[in-house]
């Protein structure tokens, strides 16, 4: 098994696709640091003055006209509660540097999503290429213990994903700390971000497993990518076109992406639309529900176990030609 692992690790790190995926992740995260640097920098006196003036203008306009705007909205048939527009928020006008917590939250979420997607593709390509080139037949004619071969490949991609995710999180968090400190901002507790980083590892590992299993069962990287895009299409359909249908939103606790969001965000809040008859017509209210972290973790554990088992059965029993 050790020899098999050594061979698989050697192959994974020698693959061009692996290198491209790593460079893409690094590039996006590096570019993101330019935005971070800008966000944590205290704005210049001129910028503060300009933004302050803009804020005052917007506030004045809102105070003078918001009742009129709301009435126009109601007159057009929209329920009153949906026509209420909030007053401009001073914090949105860039008058102060973005706090560390907000920067860390955005950066870590980006790193987790990006590495998760990259690891899905790396894993799918790692196994898919073996089938498309036919090299898997050659490999199995030397190493016929399919269970061990499968385990070695899976462990390799999962281990690699954990490593990449850890490095990406460390890079983003480290840069957020560094840039905040350099610009004189306050670095608050790191504990929540370390916890998020830990959850990010499980996301990257989980998506790598899914990519590997789908790549193995479809025997092609492009087919695995197609499955991913197909799922994204369903997600867009459910949360976009069907967002006002109660039954579509009640499926949320069983949707993979919602449970993934629950893991990343320590719980995921969503709304179920409920239609009510009001004096102004039919109004839609959203009843808030939450997918808990525990629900997400159990869901994904079951999903991964099922995928790993299904892919193993396929790999052990399918003819290789």
């Amino acid at each position: 098994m050790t020899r098999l692992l050594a061979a698989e690790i050697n192959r994974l790190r020698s693959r061009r696709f692996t290198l491209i995926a790593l460079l893409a992740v690094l590039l996006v995260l590096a570019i993101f640091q330019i935005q971070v640097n800008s966000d944590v920098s205290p704005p210049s006196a001129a910028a503060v003055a300009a933004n302050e003036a803009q804020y005052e203008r917007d506030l004045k306009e809102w105070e003078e006209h918001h009742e009129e705007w709301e009435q126009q909205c109601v007159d057009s048939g929209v329920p009153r509660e949906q026509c209420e527009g909030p007053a401009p928020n001073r914090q949105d006008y860039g008058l102060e540097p973005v706090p560390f917590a907000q920067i860390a939250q955005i950066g870590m979420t980006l790193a987790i999503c990006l590495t998760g997607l990259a690891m899905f593709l790396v894993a799918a390509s790692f196994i898919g290429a073996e089938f498309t080139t036919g090299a898997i037949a050659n490999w199995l004619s030397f190493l016929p213990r399919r269970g061990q071969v499968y385990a070695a490949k899976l462990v390799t991609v999962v281990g690699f994903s954990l490593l990449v995710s850890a490095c990406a999180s460390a890079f983003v968090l480290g840069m957020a700390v560094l840039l905040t400190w350099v610009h004189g901002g306050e670095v608050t507790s790191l504990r929540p971000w370390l916890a998020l980083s830990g959850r990010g590892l499980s996301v990257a590992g989980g998506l790598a497993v899914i990519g590997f299993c789908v790549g193995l069962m479809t025997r092609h990287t492009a087919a695995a990518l197609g499955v991913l895009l197909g799922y994204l299409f369903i997600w867009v359909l459910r949360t976009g076109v069907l967002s006002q249908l109660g039954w579509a939103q009640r499926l949320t606790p069983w949707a993979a992406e919602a449970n993934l969001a629950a893991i990343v965000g320590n719980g995921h809040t969503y709304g179920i639309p409920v239609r009510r008859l009001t004096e102004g017509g039919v109004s839609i209210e959203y009843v808030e529900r939450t997918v808990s972290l525990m629900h997400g973790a159990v869901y994904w554990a079951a999903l991964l176990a099922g995928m790993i088992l299904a892919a193993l059965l396929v790999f052990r029993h399918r003819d290789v030609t």
Partner: protein
Amino acid sequence: MTAVVGPRRAMPNTTTYAIEITGLRKAYRTRKGRQLAVAGLDLKVPAGGVHGFLGPNGSGKTTTIRMLLGLIRADAGDMQVFGYEVPQRLPAVIDRIGAIVEQPRFFPTFSGRKNLQLLATGIGVSAARVGQVLDEVGLAERAKGKYRTYSLGMKQRLAIAGALLKDPDLLIFDEPTNGLDPAGIHEIRATMRGLADAGKTVLVSSHILTEVQQVADTVSIIGRGRLLAEGNVEDILEAGGSESARVGIGDPTRAATLLAEAGFAVSSLPDGTLKVSSGVGTGQGAADLDPAHITRVLADHGLYLFELTPARPDLESVFLELTADEHLGATRGEPR
């Protein structure tokens, strides 16, 4: 028809087989239903020497080899390699097997050396051995080139190098000379012969008979997934027919009558010449295939031949005769 096995070269005793297959069956599911690829095949490959595994395209050779290597599952039958049941105990014996199945398949973006290094790491062979086998197949100079840039011959040589990595006792070559130029074919043939002379067992599947006849000690001929003949090459040739002579003459009808009366077996060939062989004669009894005798019989009756060419039966003619149904089936578009 099954010829008796009679070893020509250093052969093991009759109970020692590198491969023993009994009643092997495999059907593929297709849109048109189940297509039988191997239909109760029995095969015995003696340990040591080169064994030709012959059959037309689609006769089940590659499927059989894949089943031996555990790449595809048999529907029925028993297979043993060096006495180990396969695929159940294949891991126990895989280190003694080196195989190339159909086209060599390696990772196209890696170099030849890298591909072999990965295999060597996986099977626990030293890195030094990679260099040795690359040298052995004459690929050391191009070892750093990407596999996808290799010619077909180089790919075949790399596959042979891969098969040699483990220094196996049994080498399985599936159509190893496909796409090779004459020099490459000669090289592969010499490699196979050299391995057999070094005590290895070489199973070579092919549909190019002249190649196999030059190098094989024993052969099995299959058609439509069944064994049609097996044994020593000489025995197969003898069983396939005796020596004959091709006779060209102005009056073939009269000549045929005269030669038949003289005890020869005579048949007409499509180009108007006669195929004459020793046979069971009438009147004077069977005549030996003596060119002088043929000439004399015809000349005594005023017939003078313009061609007399001795012809030995070769594996190709035996093969074509045995697999005639296959070829007819193929031309009629029948499923195999």
